[in-house]
């Protein structure tokens, strides 16, 4: 315990977060084992982790690099499609476990590569112009994937950006990417255990990153780029590293997502700007620069519409109201002051929450 107290505050927080995640994992596993976990919850476990990962990745970009990216769903998309493509192509060749590990690596590396390539031009811009360019890249990725037709038969791999017919495939061939129908039949290999493991790993990596020499340099650039340049920091290099890492983590989320669903397509809602914006909502609601917050917000906001299902057609209406109210409650200066005056501050709420926990 003494050792724990000696650690600095952010490390303590990381350890706490990991403990909470681990406890939740154990609780969920036990509930599952005893049959108390609903199918809905069980089905949500992996996607929630996937969204959390992307949110953590984006938070690195928004919170520490200080740049608004509206294209992180694009990196998720690249990670998802490259890994699912690999898994499908080598489904009968490589055994399950090594194939999934390779798919994970490929998804991450490809997303990182895209992040790196996109970052080179993008990071010359700043502010809303950077945001719109990342949005543009995300849309380009989605659009291009939607017109890709890749098939495999005894003669090898065929590729077209027109349609299935122009592939000229042998009758025994199988479609790997079928335009807007995407990739069907991806093996389902994302388990809750892997997802949690990757999430914890990502949290540790970003925590160490922001506390490393590079991370501190990135924050210095965020706070004052000119000052950072004056003291001789290679600004572009540090920015590139942070952005690439951020994209890679989003890619991992994509790999998890792809290997949890039988049929993968790129639409506006799952890999387009709608998703990018949704992930941004997780980041802002959870607290900019606060990785654990991103995870919590991702969990809450993914669960919320599912739990509101009883409201039928009013569901999304209520959801939007809750979103606005939550934002106001957490960010509006006037409301924060009011909460301060009425004993609804952090300490008070945490105190109550702790008591509640003991009662339970």
């Amino acid at each position, binding site marked *: 315990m003494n050792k724990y107290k000696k650690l600095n505050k952010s490390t303590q927080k990381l350890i706490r977060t990991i403990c909470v995640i681990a406890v*939740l994992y154990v609780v969920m596993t036990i509930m599952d084992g005893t049959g108390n976990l609903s199918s809905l919850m069980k089905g949500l476990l992996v996607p929630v982790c996937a969204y959390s990962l992307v949110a953590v990745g984006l938070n690195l970009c928004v919170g520490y690099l200080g740049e608004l990216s509206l294209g992180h769903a694009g990196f998720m998309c690249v990670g998802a499609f490259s890994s699912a493509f690999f898994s499908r192509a080598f489904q009968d060749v490589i055994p399950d476990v090594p194939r999934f590990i390779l798919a994970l690596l490929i998804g991450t590396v490809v997303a990182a590569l895209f992040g790196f390539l996109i970052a080179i031009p993008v990071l010359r811009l700043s502010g809303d112009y950077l945001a719109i360019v990342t949005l543009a890249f995300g849309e380009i990725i989605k659009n291009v994937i939607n017109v890709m037709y890749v098939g495999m038969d005894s003669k090898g791999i065929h590729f077209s950006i027109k349609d299935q017919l122009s592939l000229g495939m042998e009758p025994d061939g199988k479609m790997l990417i079928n335009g807007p129908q995407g990739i069907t039949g991806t093996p389902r290999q994302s388990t809750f255990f892997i997802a949690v493991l990757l999430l914890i790993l990502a949290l540790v990596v970003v925590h160490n990153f922001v506390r490393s020499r590079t991370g501190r340099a990135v924050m210095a650039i965020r706070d004052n780029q000119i000052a950072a340049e004056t003291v001789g920091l290679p600004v572009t290099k540090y920015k590139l590293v942070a952005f690439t890492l951020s994209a890679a983590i989003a890619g991992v989320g994509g790999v998890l997502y792809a290997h949890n669903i039988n049929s993968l397509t790129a639409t506006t809602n799952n890999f387009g700007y709608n998703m990018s914006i949704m992930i941004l909502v997780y980041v802002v609601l959870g607290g900019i620069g606060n990785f654990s917050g991103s995870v919590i917000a991702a969990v809450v906001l993914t669960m919320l519409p599912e739990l509101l299902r009883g409201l039928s057609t009013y569901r999304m209406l209520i959801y939007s109201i809750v979103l606005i109210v939550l934002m106001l409650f957490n960010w509006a200066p006037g409301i924060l002051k009011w909460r301060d005056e009425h004993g609804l501050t952090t300490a008070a709420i945490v105190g109550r929450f702790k008591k509640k926990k003991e009662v339970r």
Partner: protein
Amino acid sequence: MKKKALSLALCTAMTASLFVGCGNSSSSTGSSESVDTSGEATWRIGGIGPITGGAAQYGQGVMNAIQLAVDEVNEAGGINGYQISFNFQDDEADQQKSVNAYNTLKDWGMQILEGTVTSGACQAVAAETYADRIFTLTPSASSTDVTNGHDNVYQVCFSDPNQGGVSADYIADNGLATKVGIIYDSSDPYSTGVYQNFATEAQTKGLEIVATEAFTADSKTDFTTQLQKCKDAGAELLFLPFYYTEGSIVLTQANKMGYAPTMFGVDGFDGLLGVENFDVKLAENVYLLTPFAADADDEATQKFVAAYEEKFGGTPNQFAADAYDGIYILKAALEDANLTPDASNEEICDALIASIQKISYDGLTGEDMTWNDKGEVSKAPKAVIIKDGAYVSAD
């Protein structure tokens, strides 16, 4: 830091309450549920489709029509003497959300699924129902990927190859045109699927495809360029495999350009005449494939349309008709199998797979419908032509 910690604490509190809430979510009730009050066992039929989001009009039609059919069946004494409980869940036409909706229904104790409405979402859900052995009858997901390799999935609508092929055959056999232009939605599985099958069949039938133009979900307001290119290429007929929402724009813009080829839509075009305030003159002489016409003379259709209009307002489209038929098809199959609701979903699934291939059903959307072991329905798409704002058989 304070603010961050605050939001963190709040979120934690919320999450905690959510998780507590999740523990008993198996008893949660869904939308438009009709539960029998007698306390006896009921058939638990679930439905999935978009009732919010950009595809909401298709899902809502399906939801309403199933509700209508379920109420009728229940009033007439249910299936094999047991009432139906029906629960419909929203999926926003998204795959992940569709799987979530499916899991919600599973928690509710669903025995049979009538869904999902859209092809993309159905591909994802079909894999789940296949693994869980829940019999699935989709009213409107026409992609072959939905039924491929899933012995438990059956379609009420005709499949993409069926539609694309029949369209090409019809055009070639009736000599409607030799030069064909195509406009399709390259971001939509349904539209692309029909287009590809049409193109394959058109080649064998000797139709010349002079222009193939696409649009995407992100740019579906302006079709002037696609129309202009088809016009420049000399297309005498436009094949338009997409939904009526975009269809009404295409017809308006073609009219403004003064371009009047033969327009040929597939089943997605049904509903065109029901678009509020739409100038039906624009749809004059448009061909489309539909098994259902809301103004047909037969008694069953008229009864359905009247009941639908009274209860929900608006004219039902083909999605609704397919969904309405779906409940009666399930009824026929369940009666054939002579099942009771206390059977497990595996038993129901296996029995229904056997039964649905045996039965022949006359419904709103076709007569003598039968199903093969691939899950496809036998009914042939029929071409109709719009004359004076009404469907007329084109044969």
